[in-house]
């Protein structure tokens, strides 16, 4: 009996690995290995000239020291953080407000809640095209501003306004997504919790601060962290809408890394920028995984 049980579990184990391992090895091969390769690459001096000859050598941390000594790189790093934090603030607060609003049952609530998600599903490249058109000097946004008696700035040619324009386009995509994730958190709070609070005389504000926020704590943190991870790595939007310009004012780590690797073909320098991007995500990602784990238990 005992023996049979062991052989059954050995059989089960074999089955499990048969189903899981192909995907696992695929990920290791297409993501794990390139990740390590990228780290190694960032310590070398590989570019298009020594790619064929294979004459690239290790140069230690030189790529990194040169990057951090470079004013443009520091601007790009700052842009990435400004972009991410500004997007998070607007996406989260407006997304949360929308979630509270659309959670209610009224005619059209489900339909419209779903419809506005289209902006999230469509190619970011098209969002970039749209942004480029709507923020033109005599485009839609400035025309609308003119109608209410304001003079709009030269959004995409002025270094002060280019990043805000990109942020606005990104929020158009991010708000519905934040709303979606927060609604699923909100629906997990039972109505009777609110009802008993209402019987106790708690008003809307009190209910929000003392019931909604504490019960939503883990989903709020998850949404903020996922938001950070997905916003921080932005590429498509800037690449199409502004190409990082004017004067690097909308350049972020993703576009900057791409420029090094595939415009200047300095692969190692591009890899080093990507490592900086990864390091920032890593800190936030670890925190997120820690939370997920706590939730699994």
């Amino acid at each position, binding site marked *: 009996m005992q023996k049979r049980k062991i052989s059954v579990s050995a059989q*089960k184990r074999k*089955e499990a690995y048969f*189903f*899981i391992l*192909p*995907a696992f090895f*695929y*990920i290791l091969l297409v*993501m794990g*290995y*390139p*990740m390590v*390769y*990228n780290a190694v690459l960032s310590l070398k001096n*590989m570019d298009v000239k020594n*790619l064929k000859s294979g004459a690239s050598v290790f140069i230690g941390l030189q790529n990194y020291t040169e990057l951090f000594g470079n004013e443009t790189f520091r601007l790009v790093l700052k842009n990435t953080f400004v972009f991410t934090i500004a997007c998070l603030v607007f996406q989260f607060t407006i997304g949360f407000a*929308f979630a509270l*609003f659309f959670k209610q*049952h*009224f*005619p*059209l*609530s489900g339909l419209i809640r779903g419809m506005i*998600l*289209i902006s*999230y*599903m*469509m*190619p*970011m*490249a098209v969002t970039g*095209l*749209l942004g480029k*058109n*709507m923020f033109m000097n*005599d*485009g839609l946004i400035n025309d609308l501003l003119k109608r209410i008696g304001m003079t709009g700035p030269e959004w995409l040619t002025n270094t002060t306004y280019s990043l805000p324009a990109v942020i606005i386009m990104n929020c*158009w995509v991010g708000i*519905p*997504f934040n709303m979606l994730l927060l609604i699923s958190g909100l629906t997990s709070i039972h109505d009777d919790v609110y009802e008993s609070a*209402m019987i106790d005389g708690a008003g809307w504000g009190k209910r929000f601060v003392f019931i909604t926020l504490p019960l939503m704590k883990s989903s709020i943190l998850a949404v903020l962290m996922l938001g950070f991870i*997905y916003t921080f*790595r932005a*590429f498509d939007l800037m*690449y*199409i809408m502004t190409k990082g310009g004017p004067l690097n004012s909308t350049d972020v*780590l*993703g576009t900057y*890394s*791409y420029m090094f*690797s*595939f415009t200047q073909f300095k692969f190692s320098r*591009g*890899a080093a920028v990507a490592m900086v*991007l*990864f390091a920032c995500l890593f800190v936030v*990602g670890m925190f*997120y*995984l820690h939370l*997920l784990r706590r939730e699994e238990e």
Partner: protein
Amino acid sequence: MDGMMSRRKKILCAAIAVLIAILFLFPIYWLVQLSFKPDMEAFGRVLTYYPHTFTVSPWQENLDDPVFITSLRNSFINGFLTMGITLLLGVPAAYGMGRYKVRGSVLFLLTFLVSQMLPASLTLTPLYLIFNSAKLLGTHISSPIAIAASSIPFAVITLRPFFRSVPVTLDEAARLDGCGPVRAFFYVMIPAVKTGIITIIVISFLNGWNDLVYSMTFNVGADMRPLTANIYKFQSAYGTKWNCIMAYGTILVLPVVILFIFMQKYIVGGLTAGAVKE
């Protein structure tokens, strides 16, 4: 707290919701309406909010371009190949993770969770160099290989709870009837999680369809690139012909809208479960 909403408040809420919908869908309207404007109106000095003269010539101009047609085909290839790889590897892995408890489960789960969050920028340069030596650059499979690496974790994380919720008795009954694990997987488990599978089909296709960065990096020739990656080529060809550019954009958005209309339930459910896009 929902049940107590008065009729008047309901109407007010619906009105606000309609305003929000108009605000959020207006850019999509803007995209589409521009594509039906003649040249004069599309880049004239006066901005119009709807086509005063209606024309399909911007669409005609795109459709007459052979590079456009191959790009459109390449976009479909990207979508379907990504979907294929994701289904082939992701669905079995989700099943294995959901139904069996084995050594290494935590490691597997962690790997899938982490790989879902990795930015394309991190693997782009190395993959380019690897594909370069493997002679994979400029082939149809190069981008789907890379895109699927983030679609597979999505599939695993989204589908795992689906498989977990299938009653064990269903599995056991199939085994008693003499089904092997592979047969049981195909004939019993997959039909039982149909909803989740549809989500994966739709989202992995869209991941391939929407991709820009891998497709433009791995394919240098315009004839190998999908629509997203050829935007710049068409933009420089059309200059400021926004009507043609927007017809191009509308065609890129069209499958998304169609899938969305018919599959909204699956897309929304999947996004909430996996909490990810890529």
